[in-house]
């Protein structure tokens, strides 16, 4: 069974069809790239999987469970974490605090117990701090742990957001343009980092990306959307040769 299965998913906003009966699946341990011109419905798809939007029709199954049955805050408990195109960090907090928010679902020792600033809660807090530091070390930001996150360069903030997603030990990671808006050297670094996330941490990934070299280099399979419809799917070299894909990106010859 596929880890993530998207079935006949459709949604429209007003009269605009954002997704038009899209189906595909992500097998466990795969890296799947989701590409398509702007407005193709990629981020919308992420927003449906993470319960920001409700689908008009169709279903999303994660490990056999329909995600539409989950409350938004329950999605991550089932093992789905994500990053955002324009970052959604807690800007007034330090790098470490940002990552620790991601960890909180693992520390939950009960509502009241963790709200009393007593030794038990403080111990749980320091265990959480330790896990957060380990993940920051993994993404190469341990030295920046106490920096206010807003003062860091955009590319570094992206790695903070990745660490925040990873600390919850997700089984599926949704990455919304991990290489978007960062410098050329940082793109290579991000690519290497994500490869390590896949091989060393065994996380399955679905990533939206415009940077073709990046997405073709890292993905096992690529799904192409255009105007809300799936127009192609296959391994990177098949997709790159697909006439429908070339037409969607370059226009008809």
């Amino acid at each position, binding site marked *: 069974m596929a880890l993530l299965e998207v079935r006949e998913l459709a949604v429209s906003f007003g009269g605009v069809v954002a997704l038009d009966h899209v189906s595909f699946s992500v097998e466990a341990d795969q890296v799947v790239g989701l590409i398509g011109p702007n407005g193709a419905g990629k981020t919308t798809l992420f927003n449906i999987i*993470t319960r*920001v939007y409700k689908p008009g029709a169709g279903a999303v199954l994660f490990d056999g469970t329909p995600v539409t049955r989950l409350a*938004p*805050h*329950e*999605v*991550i*408990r089932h093992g789905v*974490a*994500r990053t*955002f195109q324009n970052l*959604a*960090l*807690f*800007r*007034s*907090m330090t790098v470490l*605090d940002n990552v*620790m*928010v*991601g960890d*909180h*679902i693992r*520390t*939950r020792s009960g*509502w009241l117990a*963790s*709200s*009393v*600033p007593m030794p038990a*809660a*403080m111990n*749980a*807090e320091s265990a*959480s701090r330790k896990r957060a530091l380990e993940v920051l070390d993994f993404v190469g930001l341990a030295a920046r742990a106490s920096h206010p996150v807003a003062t860091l360069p955009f590319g570094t903030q992206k790695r903070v957001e990745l660490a*925040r997603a990873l600390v*919850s030990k997700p089984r599926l990671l949704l990455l919304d343009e991990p290489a978007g808006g960062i410098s050329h050297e940082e793109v290579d670094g991000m690519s290497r980092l994500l490869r390590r996330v896949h091989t060393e941490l065994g996380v399955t990934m679905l990533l939206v990306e415009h940077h073709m070299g990046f997405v073709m280099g890292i993905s096992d399979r690529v799904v192409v959307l255009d105007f809300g419809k799936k127009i192609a799917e296959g391994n990177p070299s098949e997709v790159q040769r697909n006439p429908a894909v070339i037409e969607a990106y370059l226009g008809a010859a």
Partner: protein
Amino acid sequence: MQEFLQQIVSGIASGGIFASLALALVLIYNAMGLVNFAQGEMAMLATFIAFTLVDHGVSYWIAFPVTLVVAFAGGILVQRIVIRPVERAPILTLVIVTLGLATLVNGVAGFIFGYVPRSFPSPFSAQTVNLLGAFVSYRDLGVIGVSTVVLLLIYLLLQRTTIGLTMRAAAHHPEASRLLGVHVSWMLALGWGLASAVGAVSGIMVAPILLLEPNMMQTIIIYAFAAAVLGGIESPLGAVVGGLIVGVTVNLAGAYIPFVGGDLQLAVALAIIITVLVIKPNGLFGRPSVRRV
């Protein structure tokens, strides 16, 4: 010099009271961008609960924590029942709702307890002790001590526990918090509960000084606004520092500026609010809000 020191110490004591109520305002402002105009009235009602307990022979040091727990639960109930249905309404609607809540709580307290001012016990003696040449009352020292402990506990909760961290996260970025598994709505309720409990501390501390009656907090809330605005309405630390500055300033102005006396102290607080809003709208610890366009 001796009198000056005494004025400073009693200013710090009032400052602790203002700081507690200001912190309550900041907690809710942070959680939902709203000034809770009912905060003072909620504190007054909690103080009446403490009064009733003590009046029935319960020891002060048992009545005090019990009242805080009741106030905490009451704050959560108010958020769930009154605020939650209008959570997404425009800010003006929310402001009117909290004003209505203030009037309602005030009326209910008047209905149940009447408007006759009652003397509220203080566990600290009114006697003075010689502290570095200044004669300071145990009462002032007690208020300073209690406020310090409460503010310290809130600081530890917000900065040193996971639940405090997620509360801050939910307040800063509700959408992202939700996707990280934070139960945002309950965090808001928790914020209301906490604010209500901290506010209750200010009510219980001020009641022995002012006499307890339903309108008791109406001047205190102005001082608390001044403190919160001065500190930067988003900053808990600012609320505490602002509270102390307002307490000391108002006290010194009352003692040393002849025309201020005891009557115009509230005007000093209002002057602080206006001055801060004109000169430094973000307060001492607030960050200017810059938005990328």
